[in-house]
């Protein structure tokens, strides 16, 4: 294929085309939504893998551009580098799994799948965009998509979750809008081109400080960091399994991606100035998230809170990248970017497994559940692997990421690294406690609704993720080599 072939536009438009197709077939073939979504997302995944494997990623080596609002300097600009490519790959992988997993959806099939496809397009759009305005539009669409997914296919307490979600996202979006406008206005000539903004880094003084903290709050809500995280467990408790997988797996990365792309790349000087504060918040998030997760009895809420912990490590890595000497800074940043990918596949996998559990049990309360290993050996084995990945066991996906974050961080914040390692131990404790409580022991038949192990569609959705978790753990270079292409240029 020629080099100017619009790969990225096709990847972005595929889900939208799928959505249109589903809406067209809505009345005649409502059941066609499932195969259409699986095929469409499968093609998007293959195209993404091929794009990366053919060595086209580089540093925005391949750009697709078209004029949009020339008078404002806003344009349709798509491009990938080592930071955004892993996220696009993650999105296509996870959506593919989620679509396969959705085989048994019964409520409003066409609407469900078209909403998910819209969400996929929006997620891809956020990571592909190289234009502030385009980025913001996609960013907002993800909120709407997620919101309807929770509201339409969620569990009992939707309204409570909705209010919290609403408040937070409202504030976050508003602040983000102002910060983005400030970036636009304070660069001469005014531009929405993110590459130019990353190059010029024009903001200084008080305006820079305000813009930085604006970005920080917007992304801290999205990520989420303590104390902006309280929407997360609520949303997860109410969201359907697939919604949770997408929310934790991909939507949280919108925030961390923002930290790297905007805060770190567009205003590194300001970031360096305030890195200590960011670092402290990240460390608190890591330890706090682990402790609150430990206090949970609902298995889904427990996993939800571990995200706060993992995102704490991640943002810590970004803060280290802002202050550390180049070698260590790049190490930490490599780790942080890989952590986004790893957390996506591991937590996505965990939420799908919990979805499978929820279909088989009458409750999610761990003290009431016993003997899962005996009843569902495959499901339990996969859950154990995914939990050990989540607690950072070497040889599985989180370790190479966290190891590099801590390694880079040790040179500048040794005490903070020590504190966060305690978080690592607590996470180990909470997963082991869950395994001991619910997976071991003798089964209590009263809580089971079905007693069959994972069905084939569940296996097709989950097993590839598990294989990927092990592959990234043993051969981290398959993802890191692409990441490092970009991060090594951080002269900062």
């Amino acid at each position, binding site marked *: 294929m020629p080099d100017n072939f619009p790969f990225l536009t096709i990847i972005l438009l595929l889900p939208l085309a799928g959505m249109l197709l589903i809406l067209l077939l809505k009345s005649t073939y409502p059941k066609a939504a499932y195969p259409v979504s699986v095929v469409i997302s499968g093609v998007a995944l293959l195209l993404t893998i091929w794009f990366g494997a053919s060595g086209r990623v580089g540093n925005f080596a391949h750009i697709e551009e078209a004029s949009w609002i020339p008078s404002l300097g806003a344009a349709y600009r798509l491009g990938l580098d080592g930071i955004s490519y892993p996220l696009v790959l993650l999105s296509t992988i996870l959506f593919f799994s989620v679509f396969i997993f959705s085989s048994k959806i019964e409520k409003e099939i066409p609407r469900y799948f078209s909403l998910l496809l819209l969400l996929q397009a929006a997620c891809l759009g956020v990571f592909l965009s190289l234009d502030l305005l385009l980025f913001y539009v996609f960013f907002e669409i993800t909120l709407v998509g997620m919101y309807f997914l929770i509201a339409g296919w969620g569990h009992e307490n939707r309204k409570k979750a909705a209010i919290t979600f609403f408040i937070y*996202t409202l504030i976050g979006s508003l602040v983000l809008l102002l910060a983005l406008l400030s970036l636009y206005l304070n660069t001469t000539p005014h531009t929405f081109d993110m590459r130019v903004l990353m190059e010029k880094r024009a903001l200084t003084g008080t305006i820079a400080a305000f813009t930085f903290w604006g970005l920080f709050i917007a992304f801290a809500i999205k990520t989420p960091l303590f104390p902006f995280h309280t929407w997360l467990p609520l949303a997860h408790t109410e969201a359907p399994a697939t919604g949770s997988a997408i929310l934790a797996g991909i939507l949280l990365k919108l925030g961390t991606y923002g930290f790297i792309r905007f805060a770190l790349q567009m205003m590194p000087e300001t970031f360096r100035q305030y890195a200590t504060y960011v670092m402290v918040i990240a460390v608190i998030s890591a330890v706090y998230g682990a402790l609150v997760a430990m206090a949970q009895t609902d298995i889904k809420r427990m996993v939800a809170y571990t995200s706060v912990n993992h995102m704490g490590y991640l943002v810590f890595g970004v803060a280290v990248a802002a202050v550390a000497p180049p070698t260590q800074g790049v190490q930490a940043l490599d780790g942080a970017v890989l952590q986004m990918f790893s957390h996506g596949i591991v937590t996505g996998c965990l939420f799908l497994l919990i979805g499978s559990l929820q279909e088989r049990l009458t409750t999610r309360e761990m003290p009431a559940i016993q003997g899962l290993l005996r009843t569902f050996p495959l499901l339990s084995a996969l859950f154990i692997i995914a939990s050990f990945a989540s607690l950072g066991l070497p040889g599985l996906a989180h370790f190479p990421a966290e*190891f590099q974050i801590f390694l880079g961080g040790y040179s500048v914040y040794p005490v903070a690294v020590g504190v966060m390692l305690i978080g690592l131990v607590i996470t180990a404790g909470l997963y082991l406690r869950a395994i001991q409580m619910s997976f071991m022991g003798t089964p209590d038949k009263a809580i089971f609704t079905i007693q069959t192990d994972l069905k084939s569609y569940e296996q097709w959705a989950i097993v590839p993720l598990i294989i990927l978790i092990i592959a990234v753990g043993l051969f981290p270079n398959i993802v890191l080599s692409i990441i490092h292409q970009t991060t090594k240029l951080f002269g900062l």
Partner: protein
Amino acid sequence: MQILLLIIILAPFTASLLTYMLRIRNGRLPIIAASLSLAAALFLLNSGGKSLSANYFYPGLPNQPFQLQATNSALVLTTVILLVALSIFIYSPQYMRKENGKNWFWGGISLFLSAMLLLVFAGDWVLFITAWEIMGFASFLLIATWYEKPEAQQGAVKAFMLTRFTDMGLYLGIFVVILTSGNAQVFHGTASQISTLGGLFFLLAVMGKSAQVPFQSWLSGAMAGPTPVSALLHSATMVAAGAVLLFRIYPLLNEDVLLVTGLVGGTTILVTGLTAIASRDVKQLLAASTSSQLGFMLLAIGAGSPGAAFAHWIAHAFMKSSLFLGAGIFQHEYNSTSFQKLEGTGKNRKATMLAFFIAAIALSGIPPLFGYWSKDGILAATSQSSHTALFFSVAIAGAFLTAVYMGKAVKRLWQGTPKNEEGPEPKQMLTAISILIAFVMAGGFFLEYVVTIAGYGLPSDSLSKVVGIVTAIAGLAAGWLLKESWFTGKVWNTVRDNFSIAGGYQYLVVKPTLAFAGYVYKVELLMQYFIQKTGTSFLQIAHAAFNTDTLLNNLMNGMGTAGIALSNGTKSFEEEAVEAGVYGISATVKESGRWGRKLQSGLVHKELVITVAGMLVLIFLLIALIKYA
């Protein structure tokens, strides 16, 4: 050569994967895989002579490739590990015949073995820690083989948690090494010493894995797993990995760290030696003995002689695995491991008893058995160290305690009348033990040669030899003569219970952590409540604002109509463009007013959509304003 190196590690790993995936319930595959690995290891060792016979790289972290290195010392360790593991594998089918969890057991134990082999060959610290922790994971699985039993669950969780905690020392130590040397390689040409703090970090990891005081208690919990697991875990893997870490970092440690290492080892020798003597259960006795023997290795390292520690590592692997496998046969007889039930069992299992006896006196240091040579090496090393008085006396005391508890174990298994009839000895299990016992009996004569191949020296002197033999005989006699009734009362109960002060791990660590987590969660709930309240009031405000908005809309509507009227009236005075503009705006306002009323449903999600849409409009307006102002 590289391919052989890969076979050594990948054969058991593949066996593990296949066993798990195909749900195989017998041990044929793991046994074949371990034999294959052993053949490859022997071939590499034989073809060597050079210090490094194979070296394999593959890209890992940026600028830090993962590497495997088959040094002679690694190959010697590998051969020992595989000999011991293979014997245990041969023993296991008969042991597991009556038990549950065969698939779980075989998959786990193969994974465990491949992790240990990976650890021995790891040429960089990232791969080293990977192997180290996968081994911890595998041991968790293996201890939990009978996961329906609460002791097995608790033992597994405790083993993983305690070692996971101390492993943070390994993380930190590795950070220090990488920062000091600039790369992650384990073997440096010229080693530069790391800071005392860095050395202590590593020591913490060693203490956890090798069950040194105060982390010795996980080993006794680990006894809840099948006995072959204990045999492997206590001899050539897991606890032995701690000592392997010490061999690797020895060149990086300074005098202070070495002194602390020696002190930790010395304390453990004495403390766990006493626990072993007070033990009422043969597996618990052997578990305490493992900590104590690993303590000898730490002591030797502290005395500056990795060679002596290396020698004892090899000897201990054979002796301890024989002892455990013997205990496993007795255990099957009575379905118990407590001395009270096992009393006199040796009399109707004479061949097993003989094997147990040989291994026991070997561990005590009776010549010419294996343990005599290695213990002599340690005694000699301590007598030549810079802290002779302290280290040597601890070593002698430790040797005495070793002989005492081994004497006691032999006596309790032999004396008394057996409760069962004499039956046929389990042949397959006994064959496996015989292989190990052959090494226990003959290994000592080759020990110095093997240690030299590995690149170390084995210290020895005649005084230590004499003192060692006398101590061993005295200890065995004392062990035979001592009475169980001496070890009653509160103090001895605490000793037996691994000195668990104030309720131990459960009360000191688990409960406070859970309580603290619960407290933090209260804070979290408070925050959520606050946000909820804010949210609700915000919505109320929004509602009020919406009403105001409608009012405003009506007002605007009116204004718009007035505007149209006005523009109509002043048509002649205005330019057409202005007129069109005003008309357009007022019409839009009117339209939006109507639209706003339609959407005024109070539903949250509609408000969200409106907000988002509104924000998008806002962005354009703001930009337009700025652009054209």
